[in-house]
């Protein structure tokens, strides 16, 4: 049904949810190639998301972008990005806009562990720090940049230590604990909005699925994947809220049902869309110059 590539973030749900809970609608995010979670958490319409994956005209990008380029201006999502690290300087630029236009907003830059070895991260982090921009850098460390483990790619215990070189406080947290993610983000957002500059948060997590469709998981063991599945951020959250008596098992079952129904409805609705039309292919290469 879907012809192109995509990168799933199953197992990493706590980061997008916890981070976006700390944001207002006007606050902005830049996302990554593994961006479905960020998109939903910031408030995107699942019908238009699925329609995009299906290459329909009613998709977020009219079928021009696919999974890796979904943006949603209304909810402040400046877009997923097919280039590792590509969104980081863009987030810094959006934060500069916020500062210059006195918007009082924050910009969240989501990226993975792999992006921290791209020059874009280093240049962007430095600019954000010297100008004290309202941006929060969120490294979702899922253990692998495609097949390269963080052990192979870094000589560091905590990737958040990279903040030190730029005068940016760095904190490493359990990225599967949605409450911890939320609290850390809230503090970093407050700091950013009060003009104190950026924070680097590293959320340690794990992706259950392969990098993309072609991944045969040759670089990691089934045991490792299974072990991380026991640390499922959703299960973890459910345990906590039931333990504290905030929700019952029945409430949780009801939420699962609602979520499943919402996804099925979105798929059914999206499938009704018209396939993207080659006749309009050139329309959006340039934005029309207004007279």
């Amino acid at each position: 049904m879907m012809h192109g590539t995509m990168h799933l973030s199953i197992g990493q749900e706590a980061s997008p949810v916890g981070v976006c809970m700390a944001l207002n609608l006007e606050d902005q995010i830049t996302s990554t190639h593994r961006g479905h979670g960020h998109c939903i958490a910031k408030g995107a319409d699942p019908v238009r998301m699925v329609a995009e994956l299906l290459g329909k005209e009613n998709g977020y990008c009219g079928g021009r972008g696919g999974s890796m380029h979904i943006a949603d201006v209304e909810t402040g999502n400046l877009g997923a990005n097919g280039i590792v690290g590509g969104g980081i300087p863009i987030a810094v630029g959006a934060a500069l806009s916020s500062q210059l236009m006195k918007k009082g907003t924050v910009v969240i830059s989501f990226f993975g562990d792999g992006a921290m070895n791209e020059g874009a991260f280093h240049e962007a982090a430095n600019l954000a720090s010297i100008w004290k921009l309202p941006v929060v850098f969120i490294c979702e460390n899922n253990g692998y940049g495609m097949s390269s483990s963080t052990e192979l790619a870094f000589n560091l215990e905590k990737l958040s230590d990279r903040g030190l070189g730029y005068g940016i406080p760095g904190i490493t947290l359990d990225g599967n604990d949605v409450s911890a993610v939320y609290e850390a983000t809230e503090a970093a957002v407050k700091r950013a909005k009060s003009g104190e500059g950026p924070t680097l948060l590293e959320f340690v997590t794990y992706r259950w699925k392969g990098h993309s469709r072609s991944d045969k998981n040759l670089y990691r063991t089934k045991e490792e994947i299974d072990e991380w599945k026991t640390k499922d951020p959703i299960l973890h959250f459910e345990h906590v809220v039931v333990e504290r008596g905030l929700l019952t098992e029945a409430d949780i079952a009801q939420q699962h049902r609602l979520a499943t129904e919402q996804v099925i409805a979105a798929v059914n609705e999206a499938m009704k869309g018209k396939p993207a039309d080659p006749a309009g292919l050139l329309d959006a290469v340039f934005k029309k110059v207004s007279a």
Partner: protein
Amino acid sequence: MSDRKLTMSEALREAMSIALDERPEVFILGEDIGIYGGAFGVTGDLYHRYGKERIRDTPISELGIVGTAVGAGLSGMRPIVEIQFSDFTAQAMDQIVNQAAKIHFMVGGGLHVPLVLRTASGSGTGAAAQHSQSLEGWFANVPGLKVVIPSSPYEAKGLLLSAIDDPNPVIFLEHKLLYKVAGSEDVPEGAYRIPLGVSRVVREGKDLTVVATGIMVTRVLAAAAELDKEGINITLIDPRTISPLDMEPVYASLAKTGRLMVVQEAPEHGGFINEVIARVVTGPSLGHLIAPVTRLAGMNVPIPYAPQLEKAAVPQVEDIIKQAREVVVNWR
């Protein structure tokens, strides 16, 4: 009106000053553009007039600078980036090519990137291979970028104001030998705009149509003045923007002259002039040609240091005279 013979630097600065006055969302960022006034003095005193927020000095960080401008552009600002030498755009190519050029299209039109990237282009200053390139062909090959090459102070001011107005990313390539040369035309004091995507007929002559941009417009004009004395009359067309490219005046001219010569400083292989030739020989002008198409370009070599080597690597006035004369005389 009194004479206003400005240099290209002065004309560019006037355009930026007008844009800074007209639009609060315009700001400039780049290396050494503040107190220093720009590597080639183009921003000059703007820092003192508009302050450090709007005339924003950056660290040496081209990818970060352009990426920051992309992000600022798609969230309400209208940045003008200065990259000291066009060669350094190689450091920022991801943000130019993969981000700025494609965002509007990739996301289905919901976001756009109003961004002008001004940069110094071309050889002739003894700066050698990493500070002298003419890279317009790279950018013209990327859908989503507009590519502007001004050839005089008057053109530079009007084109830059249009580039700043444009809602799309515009690469604005300024030849460094033109910065300090006063133009022959007066530059009006106030705002005027030259639309992007409209070629200019610089001069008309019956024998040969020459297409050239930037510094080569100056050199073809000098060559044409010499050839006039021999009775060989050249039409010179300056596309001004090579993407989008307006070929109509070229077709119209070829209907009269029947002979085409294209000139560029950039290396011949893969260069923009080949696009002009391709459109002529696959388009409406083929039947008008009475002579083989001829091209004159930089050699396929990195720009060398020693002055005699540097001159030999790119077309000079005498090269243009010789080649233009040959095509006219041999194909009467």
